[in-house]
């Protein structure tokens, strides 16, 4: 595909597929190039242009009637700023888009492609109709319709802007429709639509490099006129023949050959790549082995860790609460036991002696005390009273005895009472200290002491033993728990150790994974490279690399250029000479010659070479116009001309001649003119050749930024 490609990698891959799959015969190539030029030689005309939010226009629809050869002119009038240039720009941008800046001589010609692309976007941004943007609209469009030999062609371009009014690379849409049914031309797969459509327009209408020769304003013609003649001729020829595209293709092929042969020149590259791949595969395998080993290690460690965590869980289930309760029970038991011991010591010291004295002593003592007590009964007043009562009772007994017998009995009883007392004296003397004390209480105390001792002390022992058992049980439980505790701390230590190891292993795992990732990436890149190279080798017949095919194509292209261009030099020279003689009123120049190297010589009537002579601005414009027309002729003289301000620098005589030239040139001519430029007599001169007339008027309803509207007729008041 001819034309510029913004993505060189994609272009080169495209070349790869072309050169790997087919061989291009030089003959075929020539036919292809010739076919392009056949297309250029056909007649085409602008039929219509529709603009939406484009520069001065809100919306505009201009129809250019199909011109008959005797009425080739469409005249569009407009004052400065009313949109003449908007129409020219719309035609250029609509037809060629970014190509108009890259190849079409717009923007900074000397700047790089990147800069010119940026200039194009900036131009389109500025071309967005300001009031529409303020209304919130974000799309502009231009639709150019042409009639072409096989029917008609419609090129529609839309540009979408963001809210800052900016346009990005992919925000442009192009659609080309062909034929009566306006079928959309499908973009082949893997083709960039913009480049594809540019090529299509180049083959059907003319390449973008022809823009200066058929879509121009007078000022630019003047500029062209100022250039070196030789340069003008070169540009003209190359543009007309699409040579610049061919040269670009040759340059692309040259870059491609350099790029691809850089790989292929070095025969060791493949071997080295293979070596690298093998080494990387070895490394990968080693890495995988290492990874598997580490993973196994990690799995074992995790298993051990889980087992320990499980066991620890089982320990925890029974100990903390129990331990607390056990400690509590032990503490309580110890405290109770301490209290009990203290109480027991006191009780034992009080009651135990009653048992320790021994039964014999106790018995003897109690018996002695009882005697002491009974002697005290006889001895006391109550016993005397009892004796008196007894004696009185004797008197009451029937049958009564006589007084003397009664007295004798009473005396004997009294004596017996007295005799019975001295037997207790000794006992009385031993425990005399109890004289004024209640001996019965002492006897009772002794008995009670024995009894209490027998009941209370064993109870103390029982309780003490019970508490002792609690303490002992608690101790045993605690000992068991301590065992658990120490098991837990042993587990903890092992767990810490395992976790440490696991952390190290997992770190190692991450390192290996990363290493593996790097190796795999490198492998993919190397394998792809190797595979690509193998495909390249396989794809070329007889084992020739693709570079050979590309190189031979490049050479053929350059040869074709060398052959084609000089063929046109003579024809161009004749045409320029003839045009110039038609246009220039001072026919100083008689003949123009173009040599095989492209150098131009201008001869006057006397046959002198006047190439180096100074010329006026007007003369330059005339020469340039001759050249433009001649170049147009090279492509078949049927390319339409669109000229903005065509007569600006020209004097009256030249104006008349130029207008005549347009009238009779045979091509469609669209003139964008100021009222002063093509008015009065000049208008009259071409009136009978005009097929349509329009006037551009600017309207602003409320003093704000308005827009241009199109009216039929050309400055009627003047023309009338």
């Amino acid at each position, binding site marked *: 595909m001819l034309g510029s490609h913004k993505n060189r990698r994609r272009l080169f891959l495209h070349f790869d597929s072309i050169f790997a799959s087919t061989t291009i015969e030089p003959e075929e190539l020539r036919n292809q190039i010739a076919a392009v030029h056949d297309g250029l030689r056909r007649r085409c005309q602008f039929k219509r242009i529709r603009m939406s939010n484009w520069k001065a226009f809100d919306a505009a629809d201009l129809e250019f009637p199909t011109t008959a050869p005797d009425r080739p002119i469409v005249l569009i009038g407009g004052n400065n700023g009313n949109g003449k240039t908007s129409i020219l720009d719309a035609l250029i941008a609509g037809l060629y888009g970014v190509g108009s800046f890259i190849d079409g001589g717009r923007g900074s010609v000397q700047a790089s492609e990147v800069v010119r692309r940026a200039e194009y976007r900036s131009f389109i941004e500025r071309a967005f109709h300001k009031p529409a943007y303020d209304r919130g609209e974000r799309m502009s469009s231009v639709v150019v319709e042409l009639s072409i030999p096989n029917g008609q062609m419609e090129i529609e371009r839309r540009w979408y802007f963001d809210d800052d009014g900016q346009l990005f690379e992919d925000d442009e849409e192009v659609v080309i429709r062909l034929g009566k049914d306006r079928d959309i031309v499908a973009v082949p797969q893997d083709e960039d639509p913009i480049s594809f459509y540019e090529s299509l327009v180049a083959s059907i209408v003319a390449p973008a490099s022809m823009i200066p020769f058929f879509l121009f304003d007078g000022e630019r013609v003047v500029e062209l006129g100022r250039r070196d003649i030789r340069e003008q001729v070169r540009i003209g020829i190359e543009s007309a023949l699409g040579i610049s595209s061919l040269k670009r293709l040759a340059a692309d092929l040259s870059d491609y050959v350099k790029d691809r042969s850089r790989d292929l020149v070095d025969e060791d590259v493949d071997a080295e790549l293979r070596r690298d791949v093998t080494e990387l595969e070895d490394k990968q395998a080693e890495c995988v082995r290492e990874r598997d080993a580490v993973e196994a290690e990690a799995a074992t460690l995790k298993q051990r860790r889980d087992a320990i965590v499980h066991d620890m869980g089982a320990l925890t289930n029974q100990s903390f609460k129990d331990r607390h309760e056990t400690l509590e029970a032990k503490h309580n038991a110890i405290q109770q036991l301490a209290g009990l011991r203290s109480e*027991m010591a006191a009780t034992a010291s009080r009651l135990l002696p009653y048992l320790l004295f021994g039964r014999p002593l106790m018995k003897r003592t109690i018996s002695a005390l009882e005697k002491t007590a009974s002697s005290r009964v006889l001895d006391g007043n109550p016993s005397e009273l009892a004796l008196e009562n007894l004696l009185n009772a004797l008197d009451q007994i029937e049958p009564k005895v006589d007084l003397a017998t009664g007295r004798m009995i009473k005396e004997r009883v009294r004596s017996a009472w007295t005799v019975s007392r001295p037997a207790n004296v000794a006992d009385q003397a031993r425990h005399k200290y109890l004289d004024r004390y209640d001996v019965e209480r002492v006897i009772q105390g002794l008995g009670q002491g024995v009894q209490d001792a027998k009941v209370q002390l064993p109870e103390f022992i029982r309780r003490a033993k019970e508490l002792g058992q609690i303490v002992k049980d608690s101790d045993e439980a605690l000992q068991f728990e301590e065992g658990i505790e120490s098991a837990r701390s042993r587990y903890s230590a092992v767990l810490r150790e395992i976790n440490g190891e696991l952390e190290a292993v997992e770190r190692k795992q991450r390192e290996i994974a990363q290493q593996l990732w790097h190796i795999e990436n490198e492998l993919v890149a190397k394998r792809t490279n190797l595979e690509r190279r193998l495909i390249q080798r396989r794809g070329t017949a007889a084992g020739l690399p693709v570079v050979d095919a590309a190189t031979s194509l490049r050479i053929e292209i350059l040869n074709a250029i060398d052959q084609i261009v000089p063929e046109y030099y003579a024809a161009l020279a004749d045409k320029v000479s003839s045009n110039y003689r038609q246009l220039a009123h001072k026919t100083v120049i008689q003949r123009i010659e173009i040599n095989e190297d492209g150098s131009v010589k201008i001869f006057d009537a006397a046959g002198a070479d006047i190439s180096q002579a100074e010329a006026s601005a007007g003369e330059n414009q005339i020469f340039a116009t001759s050249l433009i027309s001649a170049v147009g002729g090279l492509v078949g003289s049927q390319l339409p001309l669109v000229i903005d301000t065509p007569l600006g620098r020209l004097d009256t005589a030249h104006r008349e001649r130029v207008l005549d030239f347009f009238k009779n040139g045979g091509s469609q001519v669209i003139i964008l003119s100021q009222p002063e430029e093509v008015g009065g007599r000049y208008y009259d001169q071409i009136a009978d050749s005009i097929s349509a007339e329009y006037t551009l008027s600017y309207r602003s309803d409320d003093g704000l930024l308005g827009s241009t509207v199109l009216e039929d007729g050309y400055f009627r008041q003047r023309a009338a």
Partner: protein
Amino acid sequence: MSTVRYPLQLGDIARADFRTSLPADHENSRFQREWGFTFRYQPARLAISVSLSDPTPPSTHIEAYGKPIKGDTLFGQDESDLAAWIAIIVEHSGADDLSRREFQDLVAQHWARGLNMLELKLNKIEDGIVSVVENLLATHP
């Protein structure tokens, strides 16, 4: 040397000081400490009562005496307790008309002999008061 004989009187006994021999007093302190008695009179009572279980009269020669314990402390604040103790000691002695002094000497000797007896009985006891009581209960049912 006093020749005055004071007959036994409960009140006097209650107020009187009782001591044992100095070595026995040390022993008393040791028992108090080892067996967990709070007061000195507690092991003393056990010692005296154990000695009273031996029907023979004590005959320890005492050269020096230890620290005193008041009678009502040694034999109890309750008069019937005090009286019971005196009755037992007096009955054991078999003597009529004991003087207060003789009574004090008797107590000193029983106390000392009782400590020796306890030492013999309980020298292998380790569990303090509980074992002491258990042991004594077993041998004096």
